[in-house]
């Protein structure tokens, strides 16, 4: 083997070994995706969501019935091979109506979230970026508006404006954007004082560039989470309004109105309430766990 002399020869540093980066570097969103995929509950929610959306698209075509044709000879039928989810008091097929309702509920949820997004990002972004007086005034206005109890306002607007898809979305978003605007403002305020933004400013970047390159992309995370969590709350509001008798007008099917119709018959025809109810819960659940999972995946503190 080696002689003692060789062994005790000075060979010096071998920095390449010490400097090697042991973890492969990942882009931020790739990293987020990997962490999200490890979250079993969130993945379950995502799969559930995919199924629900698939059924909302194709479900209504899977039977020979449509959602609005009455069949008074077949009313209040329990679930069977003929009518998978039974029929309601006018003999309409509950399966078709449930998925028809899914379309409406998911549409309302997504539409409300998108409108909140646009107003909220604009309002919060401007307030946070301008700062000073503008910020003070804009956020004060938001504070006062948010002092109005949300559901009471929505109820009031529905009573006054009349029932319909458009009025419902309008009622939901009239103060719904405030939460989003606060989050965007907070993000922008925090980010704009970060050194890399200052550095970019020193290098002569203009407002549009700073907004587009630094502020918006870096606040995407919280914005996405808020959006994901707005959808279930809008679906909840729709169901709630339906349950109060302020939902969509018949024969349109929404989960809220179906549940409301089913309630008086709970004792004898429970399926008429249970099917819409279960799908309301499943949808809200799926969006909630996906939103939670996203938030956890985006939180760098949970990084290992």
């Amino acid at each position, binding site marked *: 083997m080696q002689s003692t002399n060789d062994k005790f020869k000075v060979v010096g540093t071998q920095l390449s070994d010490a400097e090697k980066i042991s973890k492969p570097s990942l882009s931020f969103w790739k990293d987020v995706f990997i962490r999200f995929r490890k979250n079993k*509950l969130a993945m379950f929610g995502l799969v559930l969501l995919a199924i629900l959306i698939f059924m909302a698209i194709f479900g209504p075509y899977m039977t020979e019935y449509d959602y609005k044709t009455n069949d008074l000879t077949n009313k209040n039928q329990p679930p069977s091979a003929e009518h998978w989810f039974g029929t309601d008091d006018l003999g309409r097929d509950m399966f078709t109506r449930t998925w028809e309702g899914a379309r409406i509920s998911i549409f309302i949820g997504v539409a409300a979230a998108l409108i909140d997004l646009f107003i909220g990002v604009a309002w919060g972004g401007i307030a946070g970026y301008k700062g000073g007086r503008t910020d003070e005034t804009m956020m004060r206005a938001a*504070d*006062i*508006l948010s*002092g*109005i*109890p*949300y*559901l*009471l*306002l929505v*109820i*009031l*607007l529905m*009573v*006054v404006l*009349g029932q319909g898809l458009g009025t419902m979305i309008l009622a939901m978003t009239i103060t719904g954007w405030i939460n989003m605007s606060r989050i965007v403002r907070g993000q922008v305020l925090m980010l704009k004082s970060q050194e890399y933004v200052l550095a970019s400013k020193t290098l002569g970047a203009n407002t549009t560039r700073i907004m587009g390159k630094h502020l918006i992309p870096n606040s995407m995370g919280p914005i996405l989470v808020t959006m994901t969590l707005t959808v*279930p709350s809008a679906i*909840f509001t729709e*169901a*709630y309004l339906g*349950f*109060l*008798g*302020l939902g969509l007008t018949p024969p349109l099917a929404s989960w809220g109105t179906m*549940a409301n119709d089913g*309630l008086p018959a*709970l*004792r004898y025809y*429970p399926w008429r*309430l249970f099917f819409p*109810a279960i799908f*309301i*819960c*499943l949808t*809200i*659940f799926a969006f*909630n*766990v996906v939103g*939670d999972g996203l938030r956890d995946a985006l939180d760098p503190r949970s990084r290992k």
Partner: protein
Amino acid sequence: MAKYIGKRLLYMIISLWLIVTATFFLMRVAPGNPFASEKKLPPEIEANLQAHYGLDKPWYQQYTDYLVNVVTWDFGPSFKYKSQTVNDLISEGFPVSFLLGMEAIFIAVALGVLFGVIAALKQNKWQDYTTMAIAVLGISVPSFIMASFLQYFLAIKLGVFPVARWESFQHTILPAIALAAGPMAYIARLTRSSMIEVLANDYIKTAKAKGLSSGVITVKHAMRNALLPVVTYLGPLTASILTGSFVIEKIFGIPGLGFHFVTSITNRDYTVIMGVTVFYSIILLVAILLVDIAYGIIDPRIKLAGGKKGE
């Protein structure tokens, strides 16, 4: 402190004024509203409305009259039933709703905090996973669905509880649970995450280094700090219990204010809708103000004068 409360009161009054104004004008544009000129009302109701709103006066006169009435705590007559005023409805229904609401708030806070603390202390163990799985289900089931399920299985099928009505303590249990379930799940999640954050703080290590037992550390050092966010949730909690009570009271046939409110919506009893909305808004805004003041007292870091967190 006084300055802070003054400032908050001012904002509250502005919010309230906005609500009252919005309600008043919204009601005027509502189809078939009581302020429309070509309406066919029973003469007694017409007379009531006339006496209260002065329907022959110009709209701005009616508006200022309405503001004055609200300030003097007079919400006006019903638009549908002659001998009834909104004040009657409130004094009849609100005590019931209040009792139900308090019961629900108690359940939500007590159990929510308990589950949250257990989950945080047993982080990533089965206790944690179980409580949090139940909690995420809890926030996904709207109160009215929870209520129908409870009513169907526990009352109709098993007969453990009365199906409906408001007679004894027994009757309050199911509605209170249905009302509390969602907020309870939310509080449990909030408590857990806040508790975990607090437990990672250096001062918990300091407390441990003093030789305090884990029980003392949990209660005196961790929980006190971890519950601060829960206190801020009490405002939204009140709102959620309140709006939840509309549907819960409808499902269980409880003669509370929520029940009357839902009935008035179905009947398009505009003046009742208007009055009750304003009343609820006042209750909510006052509750939120009280919670904020309480928070300022509990957390010594809050300098109430500025209304901002210290440091």
